[in-house]
Every structure is written in C-alpha cells, then in structure tokens.
C-alpha cells in the first residue's frame, strides 16, 4: 500500500490531531485520490468515542495546503469530468463540515492555505493561523482562469461577507494572518511555536461548549467605520445585494474587458448561492468550474504558470552537470533600471553588492 497522506493521532483529552503530509512532496496539494483516505479517517474519528474534537494541520514544516494539484487538472479532458471532480471536492468539504457540528474541527494553519487549502480550512469549525510571514490565505484560482471548486464561493461570503469575499475571489490575492483576522477569515492569530498547543486547547473548549466561535461580522470597534457599515447595509437586504453584485460586475468588466471569464463565473456562483441557497450555489460553482477547466483561457493561463515555474528553475544551460556557483558578493556596473533590479535582488538574498555606479550615457540613476 502507498504511503499515507493523512495521519490521525489522539494525544489525549479527547482531541484528535489529523495531519496532512503528502509523501515525497515539498508542499501539500489536494488530489482527487485523497478523498477516499480522508473519508475513511474522518469516519474513524467520527466513530471513535475517545475523540470529541479534532485539530486539522499540516505535517509540512512551512506550508498548510497550497491548493489543488494543477497537473491533475491539466489531465482532465471533458467538462463533465471536471464538474464531477468539483462535486467530489465539495462533498468531502461538506462531510468535514458535518462532522464538525458533532465534533468541532480546528484548522491549525501555518504557511500557505490557498485555493483548495483555504476551502478545507473554511469547512472547519474554527481557524487559527500563525503570525509568520509565510502564512498566506487566499483563493488564487482566477489567476489560473478558474474559480474555487470545493465550496469556496459559498463558504467564504458566508464567513466574511459578500464584499470582502468578492475582493479575495475575484482578484485572487492572498492575505496575511493579521488581515485574515480582521476579515474574520481566521478566529485567532498566534505565534508559531504555540500553534498546535492553542489549537488543541480551542478544540477541547469548542467540544465542551466553553468556547463559541464569534461569527458576528460587525464588531463594536468597527461601528465607526463607514465602509464596513455601508457594506453590511448593502448585504443585508435583496435590493442592496443586487446593487452590490451589479457594481462588482461593472468593475470587473472594466478590468477584464470580457477577455477573462473566470471572475465573472465566480461572481455568478456567489450570487446564486446567496439568492438561491447553498445547494444551488454549490451546483453552480461545480458547473462553472467544469466549464472553465477545459476552457482555452484557463489552459493557456495554466501553461503560462508552468512555464514561469520552469523558468525559475532553469539554469540557462543545457548541460545538467553545470551547477550554479555560490555567490556571496556581487560587483555592480551600471545603475539603470536593470542594475537597480539586480542590486535589489542581491540584497534580498543577502549578497553583498557594491553600490551601482552610473556608466556612460545610457545609465540613469536607479529610481
């Protein structure tokens, strides 16, 4: 049997710890064939009377779950197949959410929780993130011409509000932990060394009823914030919502000029979910996800993604025996835009570089 991706431990006090660690990979990505293993593990956790709550975390040193396996998506040939994949993901998330109602599940997040990774966290009962710079949360699917396909378009607006959710889903941008806390995307932000400790404690507290997650979106301190109040006022009634969606669509079309279908589809899925309920929303999400996976735009964006990734690893020579030399100091000649860029990159890597010196007519001082 292949090495396991998920592990369940019960270190006591009724809190089971599920850790995800894709064997042989530097980061965790979600693949369709994990569903069976996760389901089996969740069933075991559900049936085990010694477990009253769970912590879900990553076994990788510096990453939670980076998203779905993009290569897996590339191998899909039909729209139906892609829709089916999304349905499968949605169902897995729903089961996670259902289990959480009986045995609360705390997502302990350190490192990237992106795309499918964030959707897993959203299906949990409570989310704790580390204050580390590497901790990033987001739904970057639109950057690959896709939309969230495992309930992200449904759970995110319900958790943080339509306006804020659209801001994340339609742009694909990710946020750090402190911003995520302000948005209500995570419930707590903690220093890294105590992540699991706090997660276990909160899981036990949620199980005993000592802790109830705060799901009110407007807090006392935000009342003075006009933008927050406006957004909430718009979202709380059907007419306001229609205006909100119309405005979002208009702004979107201005940016995409109709060339990128994904953000528009995401917007539709969010709207349908809000207007017609979560079931309709999930169906809409899966269908649109299916359409997009096999669309030319997405295929090409994914190609660009692979090409960029490959380029970053490219040594620039064909001979594989040629290895990059260790650099500790860089001498700079020229101080134009490129020179400044090289100096900045050297500084980022802690290479000592001599101050760039303008040479000749073409070199302008770096700005």
């Amino acid at each position, binding site marked *: 049997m292949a090495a396991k991706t998920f592990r369940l431990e019960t270190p006591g006090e009724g809190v089971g710890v599920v850790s995800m660690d894709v064997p042989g990979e530097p980061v965790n990505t979600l693949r369709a064939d994990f569903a069976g293993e996760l389901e089996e593990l969740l069933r075991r956790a559900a049936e085990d009377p010694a477990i009253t709550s769970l912590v879900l975390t990553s076994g990788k040193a510096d990453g939670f779950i980076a998203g779905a396996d993009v290569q897996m998506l590339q191998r899909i040939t039909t729209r139906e197949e892609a829709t089916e994949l999304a349905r499968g993901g949605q169902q897995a998330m729903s089961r996670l959410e259902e289990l959480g109602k009986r045995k609360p599940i705390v997502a302990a997040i350190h490192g990237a929780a992106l795309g499918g990774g964030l959707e897993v966290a959203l299906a949990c009962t409570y989310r704790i993130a580390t204050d580390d710079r590497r901790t990033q949360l987001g739904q970057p699917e639109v950057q690959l011409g896709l939309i969230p396909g495992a309930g992200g378009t449904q759970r995110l607006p319900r958790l943080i509000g339509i306006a804020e959710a659209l801001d994340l889903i339609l742009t694909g941008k990710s946020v750090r932990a402190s911003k995520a806390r302000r948005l209500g995307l995570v419930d707590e932000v*903690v*220093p*890294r*060394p*105590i992540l699991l400790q*706090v997660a276990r404690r909160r899981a036990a507290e949620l199980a005993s009823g000592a802790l109830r997650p705060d799901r009110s979106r407007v807090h006392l301190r935000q009342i003075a914030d006009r933008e927050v109040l406006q957004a909430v006022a718009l979202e709380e009634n059907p007419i306001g919502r229609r205006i909100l969606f119309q405005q979002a669509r208009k702004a979107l079309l201005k940016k995409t000029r109709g060339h990128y279908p994904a953000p528009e589809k995401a917007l539709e899925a969010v709207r349908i979910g809000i207007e017609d309920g979560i079931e309709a929303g999930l169906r809409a999400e899966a269908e649109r996800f299916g359409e997009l996976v096999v669309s030319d735009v997405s295929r090409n964006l994914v190609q660009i993604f692979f090409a960029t990734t490959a380029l970053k690893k490219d040594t620039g020579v064909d001979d594989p025996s040629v290895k990059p030399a260790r650099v500790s100091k860089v001498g700079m000649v020229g101080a134009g835009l490129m020179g400044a860029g090289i100096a900045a990159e050297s500084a980022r890597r802690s290479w000592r570089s001599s101050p760039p010196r303008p040479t000749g007519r073409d070199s302008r001082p770096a700005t």
Partner: protein
Amino acid sequence: MATRPGRRAAIVAGLRTPFVKSGTSFRGLTALDLGRIAVSELVQRCELPPKEIEQIVFGVVIPIVQWPNIAREVGLAAGLPKTIEAHSVARACATSLQALTTAADAIALGEVDVAIVGGAEAMSDVPITYSRPVAQAVVAAAKGKTLVEKLKAFREISPRDLLPVPPAIAEYSTGMSMGESAEKMAKENGISREAQDAWAHRSHTRAARAWEDGTFRKEVMRVLVPPRFEEVVVEDNVVRKDSRLEAYANLKPVFDKKYGSVTAGNSSPLTDGSAALVVMAEEKARALGMKPLGFLKEYAYAAVDPAWQLLQAPAFAVPKVLRRAGMRVPDIDVFEIHEAFAAQVLSNLQAWGSKKFAEEHLGGGEPIGEPPEEKINPSGGSVALGHPFGATGARLVHQALRQMSARGLGTALVSICAAGGLGGACILTRE
C-alpha cells in the same frame, strides 16, 4: 590548562549599593551620584591608597548627555586624585563585566597596575529627549541672527513633534522590546509559565535567605540618601521576603497578554543602583599586602542575531570561555547567571544541555551540559535582586567571589545576556 597571556588580574575588593526599584529610594539620584557613592565607599573600605589607582573604567547603559564619560566624572566626584585616567565602556547589560575585562587586559599588558571598574544605572533618571524636528529647529534657531530668523526655524514644527520622547528598552535594529524577545524565547524553547514562576520563586527565596543570614553584609553598603540625608537604604527592596509560589500564578503576562507567560513576577525589574570592583596586577596586590578575593582566569563574548533569540548569546559565550580555559562544567563550583527573565535563564540552561543545540549551533560535539541546580545563583539572581543595567556585571562577579570565599570553593563562572544579542562570560578562580 590554558592561561591568558600576560599578568594575572586579581580582584581585591568589591562593593555595591542596595539595588532598589526605580522610582523609590534613589529616585532623586543620577547614575553619576550612584557610581560616586559606591566608588568612594569602596576605596575607603579596602584601605587602598588612592594614589595607587591608575585607571577607572566605568559604564552606564542609558547614556546621559551631560556627562558622556561617566568614568571620569565618577573619579572626580568621588574625590579621587584628578590625575587618574578614566574611560567609559558600553556593552548593554554586560557593561561592568566589560569594564572588568578591559582593565584586566590593560593589567595583562602592563599598561596599568591598579584600576577601579564598575557601572551604575539610574532608571529613575532617564533622559527624555525631544523629537528630531524640534532638535533640528533648536540648532537652526541658535544660528539665526535676528529674532525673525530664530523664529523661522520653528515654522515646520507640528504639535506632535513637541511631545517628549522617552527612551525605549527596545532593540534599535529589530524594534522588539526585551520582554517581547523573552516571550518569543519562552515559546520557541517551550519554557512553561510554571517553570518560569518556579525559577522566580527560587530566586526570591534564595535572595531573602541571603539577606537574612548576612551573606550580603560584606557585598552591599548602606546608602545615606543625598541631598537631605534623612533616609538610609540598607537592603535591596525588590526581594520578596515572603515569596510564595502560588502568588506568581496570579500575575498577568505583560508582553503577550493572550498567549504569554512572561510576567512582572518572573522578570527582572527596572532598578537603580551601582557596583564597583578594585582590580590589580597579582604582583601589585602582593606588594601592597592586599589579599585577592580571586582572579580573572578567562573571559569570552559572543553575539547572536537579535531577531533570532535576543538573550541566547550565553549559550555561545559560555562554551567559548570554557574551551579557552580548558575547563568543563563539572570543574565549576558556582555559576552566577544574570536573570533578565526566568525564561532567558531557562533557555540558556536548556541550550547548554542540548545535544541538538550543540549540533546545530556549535559545530557538533557534546553539549557542555547543564550544571546542577544547586550550583546556580545560590543567593538569588537579578529577578529578585534587581537589575541596574550598568551595575549587574560587577554585582555578579563580586557575588561569585564572595560565594567562593564563604564556602571555600575554587572556581566560579559568570554568564550575562545583553541587549543587541550579546553575551559575556568569565571564569574566576580563588587560591
């Protein structure tokens, strides 16, 4: 065994003022006052002819603009011969250890025979400065010739610039305060609140006992507080004489209110006080007929990235000083470890004993090992006694020497963590 080159430095006497919480008995005094009080009394007590003193090395951590060279002012204010040369040193909390090792080097080289070293801190008297815009305007106005020109300089000043700027006990390079760094170390090294509180309780209990059984009588002078001379300060006032372990648990964490474990109870407080030592060449002590309390055998300093674990440099300095001296932890009879925070002491000890730490940070090999608990800070440490930054190094050295002579022991090790990610250690011997 390895020995330092040159002449051996003997410490023949030492003295400190009581250490008091800032804002209490010494609130009207400056670091200069406190330094002068300890030095003049020290010279009187050890019956050293002042003309024999050739050098004063002294330090203060929070700099005072009016007397940038505190060593010189202390010498002049203490009424010592005006011909004694003097210079000041700064190494944050290891400042007066630096004063000692600087003088010891001069002695080793034959540059001087006799020196007074030490340091002082008056946390009640920190310089409050103005913002840069105000400072620049004042400088510009001083250059103006007419009233209009002088006033012009202040045009750009906003009301916010007028607020005074108190010094922060924060790292300049990282912006993190001492307490936040201790908090980070507690979490990263897994030092529990219970362990920190237990260490603080231990420190207070031992310090209280030392005060009661007269251990400190020879180390600490009484201070008749100027300028009114109405109050006599006899003892350290931070020490809790009725320390109870349970009481520590009630305190709230200061630097991380939600997840923290560092409290006012398990940290050293802001303190006023000073300490000084008389150090001389071994031959000179013999010639003057003075009996050394002990000798400085070896010293070492180290530094770590301040953004990593700010107060973990003793984990590097102590292995270094042991290696230089050709000694091992079991060879040491007394360990005087500066307690900036209980979390820091416990982190230092953990690193000394950790094979993993030795592998990752010290280039492999066996860790030096954790000393037995009863050898560490037998009369309490900075958490209980207080921590006037500039004075702590001399306090630790003197306390170690007195501990050795009271119990007939031969070797002591002093370890100090300091701001900036610095650490210092020295080994003292007694014959």
